[in-house]
């Protein structure tokens, strides 16, 4: 005998409230700003989709978006293979396992603005160890405050330093969950180490790698603090990524309407790419 009642709603309600306050209501305010213009004093004028059109046509947005995709692409193409290689070379058992795991986790435990400050000091010419080493020991002209290329190298290396561990730890978890029988069967089948990687380890890591790539994509696509502290978006606009540009428009110029429209476009792009990637990666999985 099953009695129907509505009690379940009471259990869902707290979550609903939480989601409303931390996601739905803020987003709706942004939607609200994105279709209006204000000249202060809480007076608003209806603006329709004008801000969206303006943003989508603006060269400034295109440039920031381009830089953003380049940044994300570069860090993914370095961090994912590097993370897999490090995970493959980590010990599977014994005394060194916890040591390696803790060492790997360390960079991720450092607050983002601290990471930015650290690398800023580290990379400054004359003052920082890296800056000094590059200029005065190796004789390479390296100054991230003056040269866009140096600035890019620095933010990429900083992100690789900060976040490769995430890929390492996830890949490692995937690797240790592969039963020994697979390696034994491969040995008996006469498979080379490369084939073992390609036909056993990589397919078995697919799920964790999908998650790693997804997390790294979302995080790097929305990155703000570290490059802001490190280069402030400069020199010029060379390292002005999407979120840095967004903050400049919203808080620097106080253009709330365009900033809101840009936020929504930004959000839509992140969501779309994540969805496409996830769907493509999981479409072949057995049900």
């Amino acid at each position: 005998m099953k009695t129907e009642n509505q009690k379940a709603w009471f259990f869902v309600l707290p979550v609903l409230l939480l989601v409303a306050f931390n996601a739905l209501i803020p987003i709706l305010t942004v939607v609200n700003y994105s279709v209006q213009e204000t000249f202060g004093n809480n007076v608003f004028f209806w603006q329709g989709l004008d801000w969206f059109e303006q943003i989508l046509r603006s060269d400034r947005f295109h440039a920031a978006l381009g830089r953003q995709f380049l940044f994300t692409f570069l860090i993914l193409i370095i961090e994912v293979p590097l993370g897999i290689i490090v995970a493959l070379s980590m010990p599977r058992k014994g005394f060194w396992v916890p040591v390696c795991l803790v060492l790997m986790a360390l960079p991720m435990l450092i607050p983002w603005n601290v990471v930015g400050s650290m690398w800023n000091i580290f990379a400054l010419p004359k003052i920082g160890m890296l800056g000094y080493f590059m200029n005065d020991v190796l004789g390479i002209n390296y100054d991230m405050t003056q040269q866009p290329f140096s600035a890019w190298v620095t933010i990429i290396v900083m992100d690789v330093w900060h976040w490769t561990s995430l890929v390492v730890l996830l890949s490692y978890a995937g690797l240790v969950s592969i039963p020994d029988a697979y390696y034994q069967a491969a040995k008996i089948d006469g498979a080379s180490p490369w084939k073992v990687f390609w036909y056993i380890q990589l397919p078995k890591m697919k799920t964790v790698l999908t998650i790693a790539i997804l997390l790294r994509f979302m995080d790097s696509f929305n990155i703000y603090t570290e490059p802001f502290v490190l280069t402030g978006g400069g020199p010029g606009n060379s390292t002005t990524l999407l979120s840095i540009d967004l903050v400049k428009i919203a808080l620097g110029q106080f253009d709330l309407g365009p900033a809101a429209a840009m936020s929504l476009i930004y959000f839509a792009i992140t969501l779309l790419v994540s969805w496409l990637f996830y769907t493509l990666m999981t479409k072949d999985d057995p049900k």
Partner: protein
Amino acid sequence: MAKITLSNLRHSYLPNPSGPDDFALKQIDLDWQDGGAYALLGPSGCGKSTLLNIISGLLHPSEGRILFDDRDVTDLPPDQRNIAQVFQFPVIYDTMTVRENLAFPLKNRGVAADKIAERVAEIATMLEVEDMLDTRAAHLSPDNKQKISMGRGLVRDDVNVVMFDEPLTVIDPHLKWKLRSKLKELHQKVRATMIYVTHDQTEALTFADQVVVMQEGEVVQIGTPVELFERPRHTFVGHFIGSPGMNILPVLVDQGRASFQGVDIALEGAVTGQGGRTELGVRPEFVTLADTGLPARVRKVSDVGRHAVIEAMVGESPVKAVVEEANVTQGQEVHLAFRPDQTRLYRDGWIATEAAS
């Protein structure tokens, strides 16, 4: 295909084994004939998987040699021993199709493409998987995956031995029987030496011509299923094989005569050796209800289909009897008779009567 000889084999997982208890395998000497179907039977932890991994080369034994056709292979890695192994859980290469899976061991050894195609087709027919050759192996059901694992073992026609490590563990019961008979059929077709490791007596007895029974790192008995059933060399074998297992009863032996609960019991032959702990072994199939003999009280009657199992107490010892029809009830006083030519004496676990001739 090859004859396999294991000589003076010992293995310990510890770096410095001191006593016999440190050894997972204690002194194994075995000869396996070319083309035979063998089963390694024993409870979990008896060392059967260790032995299998030593033969395949995944483990290096602490002591002793392994010979394939009198060639010493002890120090060779698995891929150079030319063996095949099927594991407990189906091992398939997820991203490949069934066809690619079957071709993989041949491809790795640089076999010509037309030869590969021919072998794959042959094996697919044998395993009845022709219709799924182009599906991705990851999409198969567990029993088909296990078939493909077997196929990868059988596809090379020059394998010395194919080994199965409890291959039916994850297979549904109704498919187990099918796969088991398939295996038997395959053995008759390919005539490769096959070793089948299991703790399931039905699997061992139906598959193998010769069964090797192991316990605590030692071989207890090697024999045909009939031999193991009729004349177990050790009480462990008697107990482990058969359903229900052999009745093992404490007896007193005095001047070659055995008496159980004060009643003289006729044995198959003369008693050998002396001293030690003596026990009587008789299979429930050879215990009958009689008018005279051992007095007993029926404790339990269970009807298991074609026959019934009666459990009766003789003093403090339970004795089981398998009978056609159980026309007794619980609590009833009965008499039991043991068939003399199937009644044996065991001394410290090992058989201690001469076989009736």
